């Protein structure tokens, strides 16, 4: 004898497993969340089968239905199956409401079977329907929570990838590095820039680094502060920073804001900065005598 009030549901889950699975698939199809474009029939059947098995095992093993806690031990199988299904659907860009409908589509076939079985006992019928609804809602909620957690992970991953992409340190010549800054320079990015730059200085034994701000949209006091700090840190490491790409407009703003660059070298173009850097590390660029004069 089971200790659950969901004995009829459990019986259906056990005895009519295959029929229920097919019915669930059918309902999903009718609701438009079956997604044959993303998952093959076989894969779907396997996944739904594992969900049903997990659900049955959970109902069977959970002794107190009053305190429904999907984090508890009996539901481990269901959770694992759910998380697998959710994971795959997040990866393939399924929406949260689709995900919830996917789970809730089980209600209809189960209710239909319950009504048949408990025709003679309306009280029991209502009790089991309420109970099962509660359970399935919790499952859908859990799915949604997991769905959001998965999405957050993806966003976080993309953010770090973007960070890495947005702060590339490039070696221009022996002992000369450049870091072209593009977009906005907030505190987080400024920190990232500084870290990357200082580590590259050590790796490449760089003596001059050109911080190019041609692509920086706005230079306000905060951005200027970040740039000057970076230059100061570069100097502490024993290298020299040149800030290049200062447009006339930026120069005007900086003066209006009262930004004092102190001893930091600034150049209007990366070209001017590069020839400066060459001189500092002891190289010079010459035009060959026989070169075409353009």
């Amino acid at each position, binding site marked *: 004898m089971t200790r659950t009030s969901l004995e009829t549901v459990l019986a259906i889950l056990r005895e009519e497993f295959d029929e229920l699975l097919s019915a669930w698939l059918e309902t999903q199809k009718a609701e438009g969340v079956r997604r044959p474009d993303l998952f093959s029939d076989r894969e779907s059947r396997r996944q739904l089968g594992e969900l049903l098995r997990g659900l049955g095992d959970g109902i069977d093993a959970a002794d107190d239905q009053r305190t429904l806690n999907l984090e508890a031990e009996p539901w481990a199988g269901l959770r694992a199956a759910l998380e697998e299904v959710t994971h795959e659907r997040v990866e393939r860009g399924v929406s949260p409401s689709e995900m919830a409908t996917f789970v809730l589509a089980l209600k209809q076939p189960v209710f239909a079977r319950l009504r048949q079985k408990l025709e003679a006992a309306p009280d029991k019928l209502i009790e089991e329907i309420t109970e099962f609804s509660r359970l399935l809602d919790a499952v859908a909620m859990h799915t949604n929570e997991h769905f959001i957690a998965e999405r957050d992970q993806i966003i976080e991953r993309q953010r770090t990838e973007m960070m890495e992409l947005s702060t590339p340190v490039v070696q221009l010549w022996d002992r000369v590095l450049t870091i072209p800054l593009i977009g906005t320079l907030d505190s987080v990015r400024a920190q990232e820039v500084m870290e990357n730059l200082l580590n590259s*200085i050590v790796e490449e034994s760089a*003596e001059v680094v050109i911080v190019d701000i041609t692509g920086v949209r706005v230079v306000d006091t905060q951005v200027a502060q970040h740039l000057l700090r970076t230059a100061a*840190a*570069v*100097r*502490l*490491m*024993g290298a020299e920073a040149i800030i290049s790409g200062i447009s006339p407009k930026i120069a005007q703003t900086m003066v209006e804001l009262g930004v004092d660059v102190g001893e930091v070298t600034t150049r209007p173009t990366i070209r001017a900065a590069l020839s400066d850097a060459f001189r500092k590390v002891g190289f010079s660029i010459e035009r060959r005598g026989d070169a075409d004069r353009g």
Partner: protein
Amino acid sequence: MAEAASVYLVERVLLVAIRDNITDTEIMNLQEELSDRIVAEGARGVVIDIAALEIVDTFVGRVLAQLSSMARLLAAETYVVGMRPAVAMTLVELGMDLSGSKTALSLSHALRRLRRDGLA
């Protein structure tokens, strides 16, 4: 004292390597020993290697700055070399840019510059 930092004289340049867990007292003693030795050996340059230091607080930062000013008064040029990226970021964060002392990537870089300036 000898364990907290090692000091060598090479071609009129004092090479100082600071150990990682130097205490505040030890670094104060080092400051004193260095000023004595700059005069005694007639050193024209001081190179302080802090590559071993993983943490530099305001106190150590200030002592490093003082060391440079003191050496300059005694006619010696000071280079702080081998600073780690994390240390550089912390110092900048603390608003200490050691503007009084020169910096170089490594000992050899500092020696090259001292030679270029005719001090070594």
